[in-house]
């Protein structure tokens, strides 16, 4: 009798165990990944890196593509901004739908004009001593995200760390910190420096044209005076000559090059 009763209970026990297993399984699935958002002080680092390839141009070809050549002294390398609507790092939602690859880093470099070598008619007339801003594109971004934003980007590994002093906000909003002033369109990774740098006090001749950079995710486009080419920036030597960063060019006659700028476009 007892054994019969026990035997009749086995299906119930088996059924209960199966249901328990199923509930456990469903619970585990429901909880999967939810741990990421538990600790609001957990942060994840995100860098945006990349690189550009430029047309292989001679100094003369660079000059012919320019609208203006000016000799300047760098007075200030300003904080970089991004091609988003407000110049700041986009939201995780925007990144989720548009990715990071269309982000462009733009760095305003304020210069004091020493002379204008040549310009097309539509280019601005710049007086000696006048302040002017050129904008350099390219570079890498380093930012700190909170765990929710990181999870939204598919980053499954986060790093516990102190919130850096240089990042504003309360830890829930992402901010952008450009790792170094970006003064040359070169690619580099977090912790390294660009190969060529424009620093305060540098005297250079730069060949410029006006470039329209498309805004990220429908943001307003950015129009700026930009070096035509990374090799279109010449530095003065101690002997007063002008040196190209392209080893194949060496010393160049910047006035002769500026003469190649067509007078009108």
């Amino acid at each position: 009798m007892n054994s019969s009763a026990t035997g009749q209970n086995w299906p119930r026990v088996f059924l209960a165990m199966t249901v328990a297993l199923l509930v456990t399984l469903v619970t585990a699935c429901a909880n999967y990944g939810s741990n990421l958002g538990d600790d609001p002080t957990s942060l994840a680092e995100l860098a945006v890196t990349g690189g550009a390839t430029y047309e292989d141009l001679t100094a003369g070809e660079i000059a012919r593509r320019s609208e203006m050549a000016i000799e300047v002294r760098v007075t200030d390398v300003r904080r970089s901004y991004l091609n988003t609507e407000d110049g700041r790092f986009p939201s995780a939602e925007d990144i989720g739908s548009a990715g990071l690859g269309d982000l462009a880093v733009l760095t305003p470099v304020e210069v004091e004009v020493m002379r204008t070598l040549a310009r097309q008619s539509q280019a601005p007339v710049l007086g000696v001593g006048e302040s002017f801003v050129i904008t350099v594109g390219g570079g890498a971004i380093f930012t700190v995200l909170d765990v929710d934003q990181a999870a939204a980007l598919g980053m499954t590994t986060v790093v516990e760390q102190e919130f850096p002093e240089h990042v504003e906000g309360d830890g829930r909003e992402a901010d952008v910190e450009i790792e170094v002033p970006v003064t040359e369109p070169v690619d580099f990774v977090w912790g390294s420096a660009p190969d060529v740098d424009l620093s305060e006090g540098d005297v250079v001749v730069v060949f410029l044209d006006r470039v329209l950079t498309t805004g990220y995710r429908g943001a307003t486009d950015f129009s700026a005076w930009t070096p035509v080419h990374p090799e279109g920036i010449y530095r003065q030597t101690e002997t007063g000559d002008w040196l190209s960063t392209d080893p194949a060019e060496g010393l160049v006659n910047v006035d002769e090059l500026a003469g190649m700028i067509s007078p009108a476009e």
Partner: protein
Amino acid sequence: MKTASTTALWKVAFRMAVITTAIVVSVSLVGALSSPAHAHTPKQDNWDWVCSGGDGPAREPGNCGSMTSSDPPQHHTNANARFYFENSVEANGYKNSLIGGYLAWDQTNSHEFNFIRETSDTSTNANVSVTSNNICGSSTAIGCTGMGVDSNNHTVEGSSAIKFKTGISSHLINDVGAHEFGHYLGINHSDITVATMWGNIFDGQSSLAWADMRGRCQVYGHSHGYWGGC
């Protein structure tokens, strides 16, 4: 002697067990299929062919930053880099040249690394497109790659974009394509002028140089299990 209700209970329990087993097996299969084929971790400590300006052992120490085995260069966690050609690639006649560009890296099947070209847009690939707009904020940039990297130097899959400018010859696009796909792979510029990853471009650069192969091996190694000699 079993009663009718006991038999019915056994049937219910048996069905539940079958369903649960099926769910467990399905979840396991989905998990296995959706996980990376294998978690890839670069094994070398010396990244002198990978980092920006990398030109091998002759380079001054320190130029590779803080890269160590615990802080390796940027890489794809599963050694697969997925991408998708937007319609603009074919519309501008770049498709075959760009295929040649990525195959330059992929043609050695014995390496762990593989490019995978998706046939549709997914959330895990890099979108390759051709545009008449200025890219990377410059009027003379003809190729530009951007991608997200997390704190472990893993590429954030789906965050990347590779862009090319319109109106470039197919021969040049083949070279530039190989260069940009090299960036997507995780390799930075090289100072070696004959390398695909040299900062500039010239004819014939789509064929990998020794420096490029060294860089690829330092990040992704070799499927035969050894990391040296490649």
